[in-house]
């Protein structure tokens, strides 16, 4: 407090280069000089009170807004203005006046602290100009590159749109072709189906005849077996020895039950046995042969599986969600086809060893089948071609749907990846797709987030990209990455960090964010007071 100077002579350069002296209280910017008139009572800038002028900068805070002490640290909320001639003027909180730390490059904040400050304004100014110049160059070149990018993107977009239009056209033709081939296929399948049915029917009849014969033989055999006393009749007692025939399955085959089976007769001969046989043949166990094992049934499911797999194959994983409907249609078609496929499908029908396999198709039927198969193949090929085209269209449309910036200047990054190698990891940024991290010396890749949205400030959301929902953290959130974009000639990831656990930050330069340089030559620091 001993050596406070109420007023300060300021010397600084004006644009003309002639030094001008302007007197005003320490810490007051030129714009506010008018409020500090020497010798006249000072009114706090908030108007709260008026004090004698000698209380301005007297190292005691009188004004609530701190305006009476612009040049001392007396007010908790004051601010000090340093001119910083040669560099940029600035305000610092008045608590930084004489705190032993050089804040103003012109050293004016440390006038009574003993801190040895050097005036670095010129140096800073020079450096800043260099940086600004460099920046300006980068911006300029970057902006040119950006124009190219915009141009390319525009062309690319037009091309793609054109392509999509063409493809849509082709698609229509294809669709027509598919429909035509479907008709052909269906036309070929009808006679095929009829011929096959005929064939099948003939075979079924044949099988039935064989079965009937077999049954008769079995019946005769059974009769002989049952007729224990070989008197030509099967009696109640003879039948009763076959406990397995018990109709109520209570473990005992009563006489009454047997009589029931025998239709009330006490005994039957070979001819009347036929009706009895009908009653018992399902349960009857031959005395001479061991029990036949129950045929193992093959589960009817899963038969269709491979078809489903084929179906989804051509689609990239990511795309599935949007195309559910169409997909399902495709699947349904396929499944129908499957069901109609030639009898290679194993039916769960019991096949007895002694039943013969179905005889081969006769040449006419075979010819019909071959014709139908060809029609099916043609139809499927055309349908597949349609699907491939659909995918292509969808991919292009998806690409076209991304927000690649106001002038599509970010288009070029799509489907590109940019890497940065640090001491421990390789970071990989694939714009509009994902961010990942892979340990340099072995170990699996970690997903640091998938494309979320542009999330820069309101005035330019295209300065920040947000990638979310990466791999989860132990006891923490899912990993996410914020990518900050700055203007640069090249597209490079310049740094990565993890400011908070599992929240990553990437710095990324690209010409796409370079702003159009001001038309006039950059004059980096117009003094605000001039």
């Amino acid at each position: 407090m001993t050596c406070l100077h109420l007023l300060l002579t300021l010397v600084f350069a004006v644009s003309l280069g002639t030094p001008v002296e302007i007197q005003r209280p320490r810490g007051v910017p030129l714009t506010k000089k008018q409020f500090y008139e020497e010798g006249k009572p000072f009114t706090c800038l908030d108007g709260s009170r008026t004090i004698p002028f000698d209380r301005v900068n007297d190292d005691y805070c009188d004004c609530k807004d701190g305006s009476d002490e612009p040049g001392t640290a007396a007010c908790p909320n004051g601010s000090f203005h340093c001119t910083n001639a040669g560099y940029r003027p600035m305000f610092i909180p008045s608590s930084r006046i004489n705190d032993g730390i050089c804040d103003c490059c012109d050293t004016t904040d440390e006038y009574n602290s003993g801190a040895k400050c050097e005036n670095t304004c010129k140096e800073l100014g020079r450096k800043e100009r260099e940086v600004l110049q460099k920046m300006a160059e980068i911006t300029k070149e970057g902006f040119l590159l950006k124009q190219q990018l915009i141009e390319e993107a525009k062309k690319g977009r037009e091309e793609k749109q054109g392509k999509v239009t063409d493809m849509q056209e082709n698609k229509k033709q294809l669709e027509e072709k598919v429909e035509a081939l479907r008709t052909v296929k269906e036309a070929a399948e009808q006679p095929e189906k009829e011929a096959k049915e005929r064939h099948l029917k003939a075979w079924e009849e044949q099988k039935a005849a064989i079965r009937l014969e077999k049954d008769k033989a079995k019946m005769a055999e059974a009769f002989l077996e049952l007729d224990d006393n070989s008197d030509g009749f099967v009696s109640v007692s003879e039948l009763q020895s076959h406990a397995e025939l018990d109709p109520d399955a209570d473990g005992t085959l009563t006489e009454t039950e047997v009589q029931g089976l025998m239709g009330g007769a006490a005994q039957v001969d070979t001819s009347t046995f036929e009706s009895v046989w009908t009653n018992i043949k399902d349960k009857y166990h031959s005395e001479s042969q061991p029990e036949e094992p129950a045929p193992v049934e093959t589960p009817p499911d899963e038969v269709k599986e491979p078809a489903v797999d084929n179906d989804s194959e051509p689609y990239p994983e990511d795309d599935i969600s949007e195309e559910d409907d169409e997909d399902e249609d495709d699947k349904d078609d396929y499944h129908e086809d499957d069901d109609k496929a030639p009898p290679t499908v194993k039916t769960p029908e019991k096949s007895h060893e002694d039943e013969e396999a179905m005889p081969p198709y006769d040449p006419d039927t075979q010819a019909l089948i071959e014709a139908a198969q060809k029609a099916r193949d043609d139809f499927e090929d055309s349908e597949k071609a349609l699907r491939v085209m659909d995918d292509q269209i969808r991919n292009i449309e998806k690409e076209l749907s991304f927000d690649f910036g106001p002038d599509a200047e970010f288009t070029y990054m799509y489907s590109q990846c940019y890497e940065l190698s640090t001491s421990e990891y390789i970071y990989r940024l694939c714009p509009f797709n994902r961010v990942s991290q892979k340990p340099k010396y072995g170990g699996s890749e970690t997903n640091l987030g998938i494309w979320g949205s542009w999330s820069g400030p309101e005035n330019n959301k295209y300065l920040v990209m947000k990638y979310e929902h990466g791999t989860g953290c132990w006891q923490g959130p899912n990993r996410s990455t914020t990518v900050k974009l700055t203007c640069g000639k090249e597209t490079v990831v310049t740094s990565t960090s993890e400011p908070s656990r599992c929240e990553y930050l990437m710095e990324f330069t690209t010409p796409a964010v370079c702003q159009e340089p001001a038309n006039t030559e950059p004059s980096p620091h117009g003094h605000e007071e001039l």
Partner: protein
Amino acid sequence: MAVISIERMGLLSVVCVSLFFSSTFAVDRGNFKTCDQSAFCKRQRALKPGQSPYRALLETLELSDSRLTLQLINDNNKVHLLLELYRLQGNMTRVKINELKPLKPRFEVPDVLIAEPPTEPLSVLSKDDNGVVLSLGAENQRLIVSARPFRLDIMEGPEVLLSLNSRGLLAFEHLRLHKDTQAQADGAEVKESVDGDQQQDEGKKDEDGESEKEEDGLWEETFKSHTDTKPNGPTSISLDFSLPGVEHVYGIPEHADDLKLKTTDGGDPYRLYNLDVFQYELYNPMALYGSIPVMLAHNTQRTMGIFWLNAAETWVDISSNTAGKTVFGKMLDFVQGSSEKPQTDVRWISESGIIDVFIMLGPKPSKVFSQYASLTGTQSFPPLASLGYHQCRWNYNDQEDVKSVDQGFDQHDIPYDFIWLDIEHADGKRYFTWDPHKFPQPKEMLQGLMDKRRKMVSIVDPHIRVDSGYKIHNEITSKDFYVKNKDGKNYEGWCWPGNSGYPDFTKPEMRAWWASMFAYDQYEGSMENLFTWNDMNEPSVFNGPEVTMHKDALHGKWEHRDIHNIYGLYVQMATAEGQIQRSGGVERPFVLTRAFFAGSQRYGAVWTGDNAAEWDHLKISIPMCLSLGLVGVSFCGADVGGFFKNPSTELLVRWYQTGAYQPFFRAHAHLDTTRREPWLFGPENTALIREVIRQRYALLPYWYQLFYQAHKTGMPVMRPLWVDYPKDTATFTIDDEFLIGSDLLVHPVTEEGSRGVTAYLPGAEEVWYDVHTFQKHNGAQNLYIPVTLSSIPVFQRGGSIIPRKDRVRRSSTCMENDPYTLYVALSPKKFAEGELYIDDGHSFNYDTKKEFIHRSLTFANNALTSSNLCPDCNFLTSSWIEKVLILGASKPSKVLLKMDGKETPVDFEFDTSMSVLTLRKPGMNAGADWTLLLQ
């Protein structure tokens, strides 16, 4: 920190992983012993009162000037004990009991007492067959030794202040030979499982019962997968104390529990065993990171203390004859004139060592503090900067991160003094080194902070990575400084770096070497603004029993069992010594420790370990630090924001408001939490946090002066209300508000969504001024205070003068030469007094060269006077008095400054609504003699 993410635990064993696998947020109690699982505690607690087998052999009494010795005999086993009694200067009595002829020496805790306590003469007043009456000096105090059973009573006048073994729970398990070796040994030695067990009743089957008793963990015990080999067998000791007329006992930290200790009937005793407890639970007697075996007993008449000097695992049982009674029941007693006097009974049980107990007889609270301070020393006088705000996180990732956080404080105009680096800063958790990628230029970083007049703390833990490429490990190995396992090999356990050795800090040579490692040329990259944090010094051993060291590990000839609770003290001691040495003995150290013991106050600060971002954890920080303050450790704080989990913004703000008014003010956060630097919660919350940190900085002169006082006298800085209002029973259980010194009363808001708090303003004679509004309130009332998120209720006591530096800058060092504002709060009698202490803020020159200013400030008879409390001190300050606020004043017609024989008028303003007189810029130097006259 105690927790580690599984991802980062590749090195750790499965045992260790399972330790941390509890996914629910709570301590895994199964990892820590109950009394029942601790063989000696179970044995001792099984003893029933009233059956003491101990008898004093009065014929063996010997009395020298200051020391009385007397033999005790256990009538069950005929083992002789030696009792030593000392009258210590300052109204204390020391009672020591050891075996008369132990098989080998028993451990007596060194390095805790600052000196052999000076004694006063004892004299025998009378003696007969039943006992001896001794005089305890001039204060009408007597010590009565009863012979059968042995018992000690300390009396003042007709009143018994305290009795020892009054319940007959003295039990001293003597050293004995194991039965395997018994054959060759002296067969005459009688052995039994527990001295003084109820074997009186079953004495006949003593010999037969022996083998069964052997099962009880006498010579070996297993907890979870860990076996304690116990080569010395049972060695535990126990003694009971009765406190007639006492209903309130305090102390024995560290427990996450209320200030007033609870009775332990029906539950576990309070446990003292330094442990790294992962995600500790609140309101229970489980052991935590530190142990101070000191209990205070208080009633309206007297405050006393019991200091049980034993570093082994210790359990403390508390019972009370009034505990079960409701307030109504007590009233009924009173109305009906029930004769039963309230009494608290306390019982201490330790696993090994000897009985060495100091009875501090007060009678005033301040006297107990000075008595304890005379034994174990006072709080170290911290560097002023360490009373500022500390910004910590596990972890600031790299130099860039440190730089940007540092800049963040400036951008948001928030002051701070220290930024901290946790374990990730070191190269592979090799302490004393720096990660070459993240911190390639530590000096550059430290210089950057120094340019801002700020400081840094790096962590140095006591577990040393076993790695032949690591200098520290190699030197410790070559000097044979590691703790040994029971087989004499270097003890190894798992901790942060993986397999680690543990230096034997009980060895003075080891500590000297450790200290030398802090020299600037040894600790590469260190500079004078780098200070130290000792964590994990319980010691924490991830794969050890109860996450600590095996009790049969060896420190020279002593078992870890004997020294466990003092290990952490030694670590901090050696580290603080290192910091002193590196500056050639000039600079004061700053070391934070998690583990502590009696005496740790001499070496630095303590924090309450790994708390959590929960409202209850915020609340508990108050009683936890109050309890520590009562037993010498003033420099206490809790992690602001809570270590585990993410605090809500409201909780964070409230925690800053509370922490700003607690002695050690550091924000800290777990690795897995989201960032929480003060400016990350929107401008409103940044402003709230900025405001309260600024309040802290403005009050630094007061904090500093209180720490000087604590350092000189042992008075706690942060105090329970009863310390200053010992006769006001309403204060005895208050632990949601506290005093800072005698003059500031703080009632932090610790409830979510709170719209008001009720603060008790103590003292019928007092008035209290709201420090924010200057509104005056009468004492002895419960005051409801409506609060908003910006409120932190703080009151200045009428009758006090508090110096502040209201020009808050970006660090305390920047404020060094700033002027003071004196806040003079008048008592109803228009009186006030205070002090002002100034020194360089960082060196020992205040002590070695008397370079300080110590002023007394008195307001009386309408005159405020500054007078010198240390005329032979010399220190020059450029600080001056910029403003004086007199609260509760009346408007003067004129104000004059009298200085150097001259009188000059001083401008003033008077606020009639709040009766605040503001003296404008009186301008005198803070070290000068002056008087301000109000006319």
